[in-house]
């Protein structure tokens, strides 16, 4: 570029024209009228941001650039070329709220929930089918993985589950005592504790704790495998991710949740017994007699029979959410939290269904 025959005196730009000094340069250019020549011989530093500003000024206001050295000319040309190839992306259209938007969104949300429900059911079916197949071919079961997950999801959860059960027993005894004392019916606190813990609370709260611990762990583990294409690698190797990853986890929970529930029941009775002794003077011997005479073993069985169902829900939801993780880290996080929420929600819903069912049957 040479300083051609330009009528007015060219503007002289001095010093660095860079990203850091972008504001100053822009102010300088705006303070002068359009269509002038700009002399760059005083420019000490030029980078792409500066070159962008100069070329857009040139294009927008019809000025000319003179006095650039060879390197600066090359940079200006590179930027001009790039700008020419960059078709400006359409600006996001401002969204106006329209009548019917809410309705459409509601419809979308409902259909999404329905699709999600359908997919989950499909996944449950797939897991059941593989489970049945594995029962017919027990040698295909991944024993090492199963034991590993029984350790992780079962054994490692014993302390927290036992503590939780103990505290629930204590709280029930304490609350029950203060109410029943008013009627002089202290001794029935034993029935209160036994029935509520054995039938409902022991197993329900265990399932909620396990959902928080294990559903999230399953989703995170399977989801990060999905992100690193490990699941795809398994598929092309002819390995079945359901058989390798999902079945051991689900089976481990199905085997361990009844055990954990039983532990919660026992520690709940111990906690309640201790509290009844301390608060109401019901001795351990009396507690035992009252428990054996008045509480039917069916309460315990009704509680424990729910455990494998809850375990299935937790395991299937956790693994299914993990399988739905996409390539980005965001979806891993949202799927992990969703798996916990969905698992706990379903556990509570199914518990309610069980209650209705048992009530109808009169047990």
């Amino acid at each position, binding site marked *: 570029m040479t300083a051609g025959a330009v009528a007015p005196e060219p503007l002289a730009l001095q010093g660095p024209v*860079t*990203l*850091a000094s*972008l504001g100053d340069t822009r102010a300088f250019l705006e303070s002068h009228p359009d269509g002038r020549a700009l002399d760059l011989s005083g420019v000490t530093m030029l*980078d*792409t*941001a500066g070159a*962008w500003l100069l070329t*857009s000024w040139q294009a927008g206001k019809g000025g000319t650039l003179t006095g650039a050295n060879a*390197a600066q000319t*090359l*940079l200006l*040309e*590179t*930027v001009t070329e*790039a*700008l020419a*190839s*960059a*078709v*400006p*992306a359409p600006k996001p259209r401002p969204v106006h709220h329209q009548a019917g938007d809410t309705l459409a969104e509601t419809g979308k949300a409902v259909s999404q929930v329905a699709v999600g429900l359908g997919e989950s059911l499909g996944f449950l079916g797939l897991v059941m089918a593989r489970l049945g197949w594995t029962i017919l071919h027990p040698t295909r079961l991944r024993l090492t993985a199963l034991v590993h997950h029984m350790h992780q999801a079962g054994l490692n959860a014993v302390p927290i589950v036992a503590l939780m059960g103990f505290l629930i027993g204590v709280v029930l005894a304490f609350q029950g005592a203060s109410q029943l004392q008013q009627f002089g019916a202290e001794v029935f606190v034993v029935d209160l504790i036994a029935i509520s813990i054995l039938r409902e609370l022991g197993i329900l709260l265990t399932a909620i704790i396990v959902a928080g611990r294990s559903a999230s762990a399953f989703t995170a583990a399977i989801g990060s495998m999905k992100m690193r294409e490990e699941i795809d690698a398994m598929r092309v190797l002819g390995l079945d991710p359901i058989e390798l990853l999902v079945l051991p986890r689900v089976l481990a929970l199905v085997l361990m949740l009844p055990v954990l529930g039983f532990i919660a029941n026992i520690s709940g009775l111990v906690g309640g017994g201790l509290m009844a002794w301390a608060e109401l003077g019901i001795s351990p011997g009396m507690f035992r007699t009252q428990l054996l005479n008045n509480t039917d073993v069916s309460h315990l069985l009704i509680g424990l029979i729910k455990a494998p169902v809850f375990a299935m829900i937790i395991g299937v939801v956790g693994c299914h959410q993990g399988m739905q993780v*996409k*390539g*980005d*880290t*965001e979806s891993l996080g949202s799927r992990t939290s969703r798996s916990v929420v969905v698992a706990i929600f379903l556990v509570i819903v199914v518990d309610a269904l069980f209650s209705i069912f048992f009530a109808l049957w009169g047990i």
Partner: protein
Amino acid sequence: MTDPIITIRGLTNRFGKTVVHQGLDLDVMRGEVLGVVGASGSGKSVLLRTIVGLQHPAEGTIDVLGTDVLTADAAHLRNVQNRWGVMFQDGALFSSLTVRENVAAPMRERLGIDAETRRALADLRIAMVGLPASAGDLSPSDLSGGMRKRAGLARALSLDPEILFLDEPTAGLDPIGASEFDALITALQKALGLTVFLVTHDLDTLHATCDRIAVLAEKKVLVTGTMAEMLRVDQPWVHAYFHGPRAHAAQPPAGGN
């Protein structure tokens, strides 16, 4: 152009008992493209990570742009960090942001530039690395490997750095994509006067872009020199590398640069 912009002296890196570098010395000159080669596991990535401060060495000094980066305080270090750009092997784009937001992120974090300018500059970088304008709105997981690398380069260029660190920029690209990338790096280097620290395995890239080559072997920089000088080195690994079957295929007809 002979003043060193990066000076490394007596660098030692260890992981437990494994010694990766021992007494490594290296100078990178202002305005050059330095190619760093070496066998897999010879510590090329570790060297790059050490220079940019992701790995603290056991011993040694590293001077970048006149600042001792190992002992500098936060303000000085930030000043140096604004003047270099790093492109990781697989782009390392932030997966929760779009490509445009990725490219604009350094400007947003480091310098107070208004959103409109940031957006325009990000689009310029995206165009300069040869990505279509529509790529700006995509999320990184929607890009192919080659596009991710270009987007990674665009982000590395976001602050108009003086030094560009590239870790295997052409690995995993098809030959056409790789030579386009070589041409892109050369063009950007010429236009912006960049200093480029280029870790690579690709002999074509070495031929096409590098002014000087440093060979990493035996825990240090074994030799440095131009391509023509490399061809005369007798050390077995260097000889095998530059005279192997792939090396002959990669020789340009006119000889070195």
